[in-house]
């Protein structure tokens, strides 16, 4: 695996303080991937987004507001996003457990405060992790905050477990 330098995807817009209980309701906690994915569909429905119910071949980029992913540490929320085809997550700010879990599962979590008002649900976005910007359908580019050196290494490895295997290899 490893980090894809450029990511395209349809925007899923979410608001501020979206907690993991609503994003992925606890009755859908499961070790079964299909069931976990169903939980995300239920969550999206509760959040009232226009999210398509099928995974998109184009990939999905979440655009959320402040404190995204607050609440429970249940990683099924992030696993649900990943198996649904989410390729990247942009938010004004992240809750800390959720932020770590995104990177740990190889999903770039990028902080950008300027685009929440600008992005339309479903519009095609282009994201350059390497160059640090996100491009809207009308070609306007917005920079996101620099990725921390440690998080960068985890993302480059493809997640925390591949990172660990690299670390062990060196040791």
């Amino acid at each position: 695996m490893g980090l894809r330098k450029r990511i395209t995807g349809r925007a899923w817009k979410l608001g501020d303080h979206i907690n993991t209980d609503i994003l992925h309701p606890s009755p859908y906690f499961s070790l079964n991937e299909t069931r976990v994915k169903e939980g995300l569909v239920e969550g999206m429905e509760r959040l009232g987004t226009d999210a398509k119910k099928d995974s998109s071949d184009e990939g999905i980029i979440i655009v959320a507001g402040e404190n995204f992913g607050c609440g429970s540490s249940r990683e099924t929320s992030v696993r649900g996003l990943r198996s649904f085809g989410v390729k990247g997550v942009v938010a004004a700010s992240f809750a800390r457990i959720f932020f770590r879990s995104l990177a740990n599962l190889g999903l770039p979590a990028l902080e950008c405060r300027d685009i929440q008002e600008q992005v339309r649900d479903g519009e095609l976005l282009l994201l350059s992790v390497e160059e640090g910007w996100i491009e809207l359908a009308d070609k306007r580019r917005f920079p996101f905050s620099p990725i921390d050196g440690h998080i960068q290494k985890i993302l480059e490895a493809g997640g925390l477990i591949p990172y660990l295997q690299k670390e062990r290899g060196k040791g």
Partner: protein
Amino acid sequence: MLEGYTDKIIQKHSEGRREGEYEAVDVDFVLLPDPTFALLLSELKDLGGRIWDKEKVFVTVDHFAPPSTIERANIAKAVISFAKNEALPHQSIYQGICHQLLIEGPWLRPGMLVLGADSHTTTAGALGCLATGMGSTDILYTLVTGKTWLRPPKAVRIDLMGKLPPYIMGKDIILDLLGRFGEGGFRYQALEFYDDGGVLSMDDRFAICNMVVEGGAKNGLFAPDQVTKNYLEERDGHSNHWEKSSREDFHYTQELKVDLSSLKPKVALPHSPAHAVTVEEVKGEAIDQVFIGSCTGGRLRDLELTARILKKRKVASGIRLLITPASQKIYQEAMEKGYLQVILEAGGVILNPSCGLCGGIDKGILAAGEKCVSTSNRNFQGRMGDPSSRIYLVSPLTAAASALAGRIIDPREVM
């Protein structure tokens, strides 16, 4: 200069390796509740299946306790089998909620660095530990290596001052702070509480540290003092020693003072723990169910004060009062002290210790449109049942008083 206890604990556990803003640190203890531990089991096996130090982990079956579906039974079974096959020395099946068992057990002392695969691991910070929750993959990394990577947080010193009114509990104090600073108000920060007057019980301190995560904090802790020392001595049956730090050692980013004497009972309205107002402001709101329990509000003091309110009274007609003691130990003590008898006579229903009700996992699930007053920590939409149900977070005193009235009332009305 050190930022506070949290910074001091990180420095003491640092390996001296840094990447970006993150520091590699040694972990002293790991809490592993059933669902989130089950989520990492197959990957742990792929990595060789070896836990770095079996003495330093504690496995609990508390979320699916006992399981209510076949799928959950299988998840619990996977955890139970693993713990048995690996002969893990510290494990518990159905003995209580993990966060309560963690602090009842003999393992934690001030100055330790503790992780848990559950966001409310912050509870243990009341013992002067750096305790924080993480997702399953982070915990897997720690189980294999004995380490984690931490971004040292900014610390906020919070002085709890003045006389504690008899109608105010730890829950009111944390709801007040959450209401003032918001759901993300303490994101990535360490909250360090000082109770120099020693007015708060350990149970109140646990409730406060339990909910710091609802403000986004990485951890919350109480500066170890005589109350901590007494708790540890009673727990361990012998005296404990730790290095004491004076306040001059630390340089906090921010300092706050809370005047306890001026606080009023608080309620967090749906659907945010930070949507806190005084109980007076929503007085009279009709309710369907009252829940007293969880890792926030199911401790002995919570049940003691509940019993004090309910004594020789009856729960209002049509109101369901559900109680879950946070552990079997608390259950037994509450029974011996007569609290459970009072609760039963008032019309309350007592359930076994588990995360079931608070997490919408099993029992007491809310129907469409129902309203529940709860001593737990989260009132997110759909947390305890139907997405149209509504949860009001309060202290056990306010919950018990509201159960009597059949509507939300200030506990001072019945004290």
